[in-house]
C-alpha cells in the first residue's frame, strides 16, 4: 500500500476561499510532484520539488503555490478558489539517489476538489 498520504480526500468549497491540500510521504523521497487530473483525462504536472526549499512550476500553468519546508511534506495552496479549479489533485514522490531513472512514482489517493 501507498506510503504517501493526501488529505482531504474530498473537498467542496465556495468561491474565494483559501485552501491547502496536504501531501505527506514516509519514504524519505527527495522528489515530489503535484498533478492535476480532470475526470477520465490525462495527468498534467503543475508543480514539483527536488528537495527541501526547492519548488518548480510544471508544464501546466496553475494559480496554486507549493512549499517544501520538510522532506516529507509538500502542501499545495490555492489563495482564492474558483470553479475552474475543480479537479482531482494527485501527489507523487520518487527516489532521487542511485538509479533514479528506474524509480517509479508513488502516488497518493488524490484530493477531489469541487469549487462551487
Amino acid at each position, binding site marked *: 500500500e501507498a506510503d504517501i498520504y493526501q488529505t482531504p480526500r474530498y473537498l467542496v468549497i465556495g468561491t474565494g476561499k483559501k485552501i491547502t491540500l496536504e501531501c505527506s510521504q514516509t519514504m524519505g523521497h527527495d522528489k515530489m510532484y503535484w498533478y492535476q487530473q480532470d475526470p477520465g483525462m*490525462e495527468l498534467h504536472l503543475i508543480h514539483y520539488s527536488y528537495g527541501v526549499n526547492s519548488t518548480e512550476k510544471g508544464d501546466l500553468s496553475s494559480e496554486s503555490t507549493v512549499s517544501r519546508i520538510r522532506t516529507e511534506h509538500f502542501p499545495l495552496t490555492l489563495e482564492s478558489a474558483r470553479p475552474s479549479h475543480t479537479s482531482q489533485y494527485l501527489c507523487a514522490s520518487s527516489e532521487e539517489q542511485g538509479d533514479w531513472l528506474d524509480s517509479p512514482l508513488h502516488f497518493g489517493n488524490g484530493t477531489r476538489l469541487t469549487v462551487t
Partner: protein
Amino acid sequence: AQSVTQLDSHVSVSEGTPVLLRCNYSSSYSPSLFWYVQHPNKGLQLLLKYTSAATLVKGINGFEAEFKKSETSFHLTKPSAHMSDAAEYFCVVRGRDDKIIFGKGTRLHILP
C-alpha cells in the same frame, strides 16, 4: 525529447479473454517505461516497469509487457481478463533528462 502514445482510448474485452493495451514511445535515448493502473477515485498504482534489463517484464495481477525497441512499443497484456481489471491504464516514459511523460490513458472495460 520523448513522447508516449496510447493507441486506444477505450478497450472492451469479455471476462476470461486476453487483454492488449497498446503503447508506443519515442525517446532520444534508452528510457525507462512504466505502466500504471488507476481505479475510480484512486491514485495511480504501479503495474510494472522496464529498466533495460529483460525485455519481457512481469507485473502485478498477472499483467506483463514486452519492450520492443525496433517497434518502439511497450504493449501491456494479460492472458485472461477479470472484472476487477476494469480501470484506466497509463503508459509512462521517463528519460535521462528526468522528464516524466504520461500517455493519455486507456480505459479498459470488462464485459461479463
